């Protein structure tokens, strides 16, 4: 079986998210980068599926040439191939992103055969539009369900469908999607592996394909400015760590009516 995972390079913020002077981007000059956490689970899921059923997994990203780092990380986790769909690295709206992804997926399928599954993160960690996967699936005419946290990647795949679950508070909805299908997965689907040293070495040498993004231009949503939320002004009362601190905490909890 063939599985595609779509990932996005995002900065790793510390306690605050720095914004550039013009307010149009996150100032990531001093930040490390990763793929969105949901997507790391999607990558792990794809690797596990191919380990269990054979076939091939491919990771794709739309972004600047720097996103090569995230593709190689996915390869170091066990994905077979990386594909960079290169842009200027600017902030692309969801419609523009989805259109470019659809074009890239069609090209990959023309060359290497159809993907049984296309996996997305439920939402990107940074922009959080909650829609790119749905737009791509709709354009490809394939079913998609968001919020997937349990995938029965078991023997069912062979019969042309995949069984998935998504938690809804105290219950879990079960779906059975005919293949080919798309999924928006959430962190918690699995515990992504740490790449082995061998995996890292392989990833360094791996061939990552690069192609220019099919660009239809901006859609109807555009970024005007980014801004940090106002600091919540709270003065912190330092409570002692000894018995007097315990007494003070009990007093506080009583005031809050958490203790009676």
């Amino acid at each position, binding site marked *: 079986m063939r599985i595609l995972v779509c990932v996005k390079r995002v900065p790793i913020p510390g306690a605050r998210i720095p914004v550039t002077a013009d307010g149009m981007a996150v100032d990531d000059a001093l930040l490390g980068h990763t793929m969105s956490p949901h997507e790391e689970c999607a990558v792990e899921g794809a690797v596990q599926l191919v380990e269990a059923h054979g076939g091939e997994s491919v990771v794709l990203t739309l972004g600047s040439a720097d996103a090569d780092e995230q593709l190689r990380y996915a390869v170091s986790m066990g994905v077979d191939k990386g594909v960079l769909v290169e842009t200027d690295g600017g902030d692309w709206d969801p419609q523009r992103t989805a259109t470019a992804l659809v074009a890239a997926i069609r090209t990959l399928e023309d060359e290497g055969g159809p993907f049984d599954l296309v996996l997305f993160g439920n939402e990107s960690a940074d922009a959080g539009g909650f829609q790119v996967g749905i737009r791509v699936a709709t354009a490809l005419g394939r079913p998609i369900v968001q919020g997937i946290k349990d995938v029965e990647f078991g023997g069912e795949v062979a019969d042309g469908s995949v069984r998935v679950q998504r938690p809804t508070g105290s219950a879990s909805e079960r779906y059975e999607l005919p293949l080919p299908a798309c999924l928006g997965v959430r962190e918690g689907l699995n515990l992504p592996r740490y790449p082995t040293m061998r995996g890292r070495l392989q990833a360094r040498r791996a061939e990552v394909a690069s192609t220019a993004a099919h660009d239809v231009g901006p859609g109807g949503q555009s970024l005007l400015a*980014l801004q940090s939320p106002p600091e919540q002004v709270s003065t912190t009362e330092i409570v002692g760590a000894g018995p007097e601190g315990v007494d003070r905490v009990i007093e506080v909890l009583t005031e809050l009516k958490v203790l009676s």
Partner: protein
Amino acid sequence: MILVLCEATTTEEGDEVLAVPSRQALTLARDLPGASAGVAAVVVDDGEVDVDEVAEDAGRYGAELVYSLEHDLFARYGPETWGAALVAAISEAGATVVVAAGTDRGGEVLAHAAARLDLPLVANVTEVRSDGEAWDLERVRWGGSLLESARLESDCKLVSMLPHAVDAVALDEPEEPELVEFEVELDESLARSCVVDEVVTSTGMSLATAPVVVGGGRGVGSAEGFAQLEQLARLLGGAVGCSRVATNNGWRPHRDQVGQTGTAIAPTVYIACGISGAIQHWSGARSAKHVLAINTDPEANMVQKANWAVIGDLHQFVPALVEAIRAR
């Protein structure tokens, strides 16, 4: 006409009403540009919901018209069937604005409608301004840790509202809305993504609604270390949460994770033990009304954000606190 996709829920008394985020979405919709042309609620009739009762509640929050969408396939939820049905309702109503609460279902269904119509959709909006054709909106990125001003240009404007961005306010003198039963035509093949069945997974206290959350992070150090936190949570009638470090180390199941990619909590007090308070975690904890941090590092972000902070070792302080509460 403004359409508001609404979700129904059942109260403890057994009344069928709109879910709180749907009431909030209606409240927001009343003040949007274009509201003078009317606000209509859209509910999907799954065969079990009491449409009359729900419509009455929608009227209290400003709906003049309620579309009840009817089709055999609605007995089970399906993102594609509901999305296609919303598209049909948009066309039927001649809507120029469509709003949904940014809940799991609301956001998903609206995104399916946007995809089918190839229209822009702005997600997790908190505020709308307009001085003409285009809208300027405020929305959140990074789970609320970064604010974005965005422009939306489209003949039909689709927005999902960040839950709790506005309070639900009922009208002083609501009128009973007109109820329109709308038989939707659907491509039966969309049944492919309908729910097959539902399994109950938990009957315990929900982290999202717990009045007290005791959270543990890197400082807890092990799965066993959480036993102390569980004791404290039990004594306070609360739930145990954790940071991403704790789930990534396999100390806690992912359903306990508080954060941008986990659960958002809103307790009276959040007791954060050995948690540094990185963006990822704070995104899910920011709605806590009070924070008590227990941390060895006085510079930790969580300590800066806390109302009260114990600068010390949680492995000594938490058992002492548990013992003192028991001794009362």
